[in-house]
């Protein structure tokens, strides 16, 4: 029998305490942080049938990857020669 899965909102709740520090470290604006969280969570919600074994790990990794990409893009805009 399939084990019940936590909702994505519950998974997000378990990460909420650590995410502000992540956004701050990458210099992510509040608006961008919201967009990143929404996008990552919706992608997680779309993959529920994959029955991820570690959805928190997946979500955290996806959010950090998006923060990293966002920070790199911003650095490129600030310094086009970089």
């Amino acid at each position, binding site marked *: 029998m399939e084990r019940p899965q936590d909702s*994505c*909102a519950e998974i*997000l709740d378990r990460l909420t305490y650590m995410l502000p520090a992540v956004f701050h470290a990458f210099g992510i604006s509040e608006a961008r*942080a919201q967009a990143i969280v929404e996008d990552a969570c919706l992608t997680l*919600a*779309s*993959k529920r049938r*994959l029955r991820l074994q570690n959805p928190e*790990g997946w979500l955290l990794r996806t959010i950090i990857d998006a923060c990293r990409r966002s920070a790199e893009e911003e650095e490129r805009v600030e310094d086009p020669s970089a």
Partner: protein
Amino acid sequence: MKIHPHDDVLEEFLLSQESGHLTVLRHLQWCAYCRSRLAYLPRERHAEAKPPMRDGALAGYERALEEGRRTLEEREAALDEERDEAPGLFVELLDQPADQRETLLRNTSRFHTWGVFELLVERSLEVALLDPARGENLGLLALRLSDHLDAERYGAERIADLQARAWAYIGNACRMRFDFTAAEEAFLNARARLKEGTGDSLEMAVLLDLRASLRRAQRRFDESLRMLGRAVKIFLGTGERHRAGRSLVNMSTVHHEAGDPAAGIPLLLQALELIDPEREPRLLLCARHNLIDYTAGVGRFQEAQKLYREARPLYRSFNEPWVQNRRSWVRGKIARGLGQLKLAETRFLAARDGFLKEGVPYDTALISLELALLYAEQGRTAELKRLAAEMVPIFASGKIHREALAALTFLRQAVEAEEASLEVVVRVADFLRKSEHDPGLRFEARG
């Protein structure tokens, strides 16, 4: 820090930690997975250290997270509703004649939901196990449906991810019905869709795992092993231990089919550490059965018998002919290896009768050859003749490829002419085992 810190430094460090941090440290000491996660966490910035976060900034992020959570809850509730409705729509779709399904999908917006899309994709994989052509059709239907999905609502990249999975499942179904050209094309389509997707490495690992099975079927074993190695690395790196276990089982099968079962044994032992028995008991059974079979295959019969005894309760929980016939077969191999010839014969006969009853001609042929070996070793010509006569249904089935048929015909003729030496039986049995995974292999009547 490139130099290992002195014990005193480590001790001072530990003593300076609060109890909560110490718990985390103890966990990190033993958990390779969490240590690997540290690599993703914000790293020290040497050039421009961020100023400490002010309360205002924290409150701002908390607001953003709260807003994000609200949006997520709404969208997740909508997705749940779609998923609840999907099975009914799925049945409605499949109740239509096959040639009308695409029209229904195109013209009826009720079907244009993520719920139906992902259900079709999932069923495509499941159904293909029993009926590859039907599984392929479901995958293609899923792709047709995806053309009508609202990209703004569901996200173009997320749609591309699931399209990639649909193509991968189609590729797998094509591989299962031996259309390797179509399978290759489907996997290329999957890769192209992934490039348009979210960049989720997990999707890449799913694709690699399935594509590796195609490479195995094409007998391109090195490529297959490389792909599976990459898949295992990704799965382990993302905490998907069960999926990593599954890929390791696949790797062991590649070694077995390449004629090196010994190399598969350590991989199966590793897989058994990772497989979640509750999630997929059949995969656990598969791993344990293969471990017993490969161990017997390399002549370690005592060890194989011990492994079999440990797996007995698991075998009992799958009281279906497919499993029980294979169980009798492997028990026969062990008995034969331990010199218990009468017992081996009983087990092989039970397995053969089971395969005959189930109408599985290739396995019937293989097990008949095991019996033929037993009889030939003991010079039991009469039994060999009877066995050859009992092979008639296998010939009549039309489900055996022509080279295997040629080998069996050769054996039958030799038995009837009373010229079936042990060497002939061994040669035909070896050929049949190899040609099971390589239908292109040719049987040479004279060695």
